[in-house]
């Protein structure tokens, strides 16, 4: 009898213990979930020092999805319509697989983990203070579909050749070598990323823009960098393009940063000669239009070797002149006004301009050049060549046969 009482007591105690354990488990799980998820009202809370306490935590945030440079969430989609630098507090990059079914401009609500960039992330993320770590199962709720205009590429004229409809494609190569960290002025990055944003807004697909910048690392998330700016990588890119660029396609080339006499400075104390660069460009024989815009010192020395039919070539200075920065040191002088002409807004947001000299509602390459040349206040003489024959011409275009063809070339 006593034995039975002991067994019953032990059994009751065991049952009680099990009940306590079982009742505790779900409570702990629920607590863990509710403690870890933090609702964030402003994207700024996810960036810089403000994010310190949220790193490693699940956050719930609303914003606009944007995939025009790198995938990111923005607090205001209008930020991407201007060619201004997006402040760090206004966007947070996405790391991991791109969210499916989203278009740039969609307003979304996300529940996702905030992390610091990891070693396996793309190089352009490594200077970011934080990223939203996506996985294939990250929940994304679309709150409002995009109101952005359709990409310009869908509005392009479709050429009809015989019975075959051909859609022209647009390719670009943007190069700034920088030489080394000390000489790699921030304006070279700003010039490249502004041009990148202009091309993207004009309908150039991100996959068709090749960026070769300094050692291969982006300064911020506004533009991906595909390669270090070296001779070998320039060779690689033009080898790819010689098969990708087709007869109806346009190729835009921008050279930036330092130049020495008849050479472009690249990364790590190397150069490429004007004839060496022309040999790379000459690999592209099958194209419609080619626009080459050069900013570097002595860039005029590149014009003659690059002169060919169906090419618009412009340089910010003559073969014997140095090129200059804008007074802000944030852009090149010529490029500052050239960007203003193409966008209608000064790159630093200090006002609007109108370079549409013939009032046809569009700014041609000749108009952009003329506007930049007229507003360039530095001791540099920009010049232009587009009739396929030397010599090049300075001053307002058209002049001496140059500038006529490019007056009907747009971006596009």
């Amino acid at each position, binding site marked *: 009898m006593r034995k039975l009482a002991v067994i019953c007591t032990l059994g009751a105690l065991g049952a009680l213990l099990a009940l306590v354990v079982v009742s505790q488990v779900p409570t702990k799980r629920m607590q863990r979930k509710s403690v870890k998820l933090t609702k964030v009202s402003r994207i700024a809370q996810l960036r810089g020092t403000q994010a310190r306490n949220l790193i490693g935590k699940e956050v719930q945030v609303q914003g606009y999805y944007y995939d025009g440079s790198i995938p990111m969430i923005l607090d205001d989609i209008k930020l991407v319509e201007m060619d201004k630098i997006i402040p760090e507090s206004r966007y947070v990059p996405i790391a991991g697989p791109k969210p499916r079914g989203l278009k740039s401009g969609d307003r979304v609500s996300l529940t996702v983990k905030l992390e610091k960039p990891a070693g396996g992330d793309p190089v352009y993320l490594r200077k970011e203070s934080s990223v939203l770590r996506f996985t294939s199962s990250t929940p994304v709720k679309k709150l409002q579909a995009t109101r952005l205009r359709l990409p310009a590429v869908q509005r392009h004229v479709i050429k009809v050749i015989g019975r075959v409809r051909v859609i022209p494609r647009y390719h670009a190569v943007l190069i700034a070598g920088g030489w080394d960290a*000390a000489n*790699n*002025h921030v*304006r070279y990055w700003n010039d490249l990323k502004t041009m990148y944003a202009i091309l993207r807004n004009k309908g150039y697909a991100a996959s068709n823009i090749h960026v070769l910048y300094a050692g291969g690392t982006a300064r911020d998330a506004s533009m991906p960098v595909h390669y270090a700016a070296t001779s070998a990588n320039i060779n690689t890119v033009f080898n790819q393009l010689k098969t990708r660029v087709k007869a109806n396609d346009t190729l835009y080339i921008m050279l930036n940063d*330092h*130049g020495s006499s008849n050479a472009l*400075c690249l990364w790590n104390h190397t150069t490429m000669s004007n004839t060496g660069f022309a040999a790379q460009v000459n690999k592209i024989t099958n194209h419609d239009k080619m626009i080459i815009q050069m900013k570097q*010192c002595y860039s005029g020395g590149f014009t003659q070797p690059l002169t060919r039919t169906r090419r618009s070539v412009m340089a910010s200075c003559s073969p014997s002149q140095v090129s200059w920065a804008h007074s802000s*040191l944030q852009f090149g002088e010529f490029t500052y006004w050239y960007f203003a002409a193409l966008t209608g807004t000064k790159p630093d947001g200090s006002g609007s301009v109108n370079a549409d000299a013939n009032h046809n509602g569009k700014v041609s390459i000749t108009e952009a050049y003329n506007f930049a040349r007229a507003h360039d206040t530095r001791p540099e003489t920009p010049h232009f060549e587009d009739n396929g024959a030397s010599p090049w011409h300075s001053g307002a275009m058209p002049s001496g046969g140059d500038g006529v063809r490019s007056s009907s070339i747009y971006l596009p």
Partner: protein
Amino acid sequence: MNAGAGLAAALFAGALLCVCCSSGSDAAREAVPPLKAEIAQVRGDSAEQWIGKRVVVEGFYYGETIPMILDDINRAYIDVLMPKESYLPILGPVPDHLKTGDRVAVTGMIDRPGPADSLDLASEKIVIRISDGRDIHILEGVME
């Protein structure tokens, strides 16, 4: 109990020693005035003989690439490579309020960049190493 009191006394003495040494070295630092040097001297052909020396160098602050002082701020406005004798990279905590173009005096140790320093300095042979923001004194602020 006695052992505890002994330990506390030893810790107190150690702390006192540290404070004395620290203030002593600060005092020594202030007592020995830095050598006045030009950027071209410390970055030029005789750069090796400046290594390890505490100097004060004047120039224009330029913070658009790596923090540095330039002998002439106009060098930053043209796309010509800067000669190595024209600039001196600064290693250490640069104060946030410095603006590109400020004319400054930088006091610090001439040194070679080490493996623990930024990779951006890998191609530089000589830098000036500062210990805190007070080592950079603005002589003339840039006009806004």
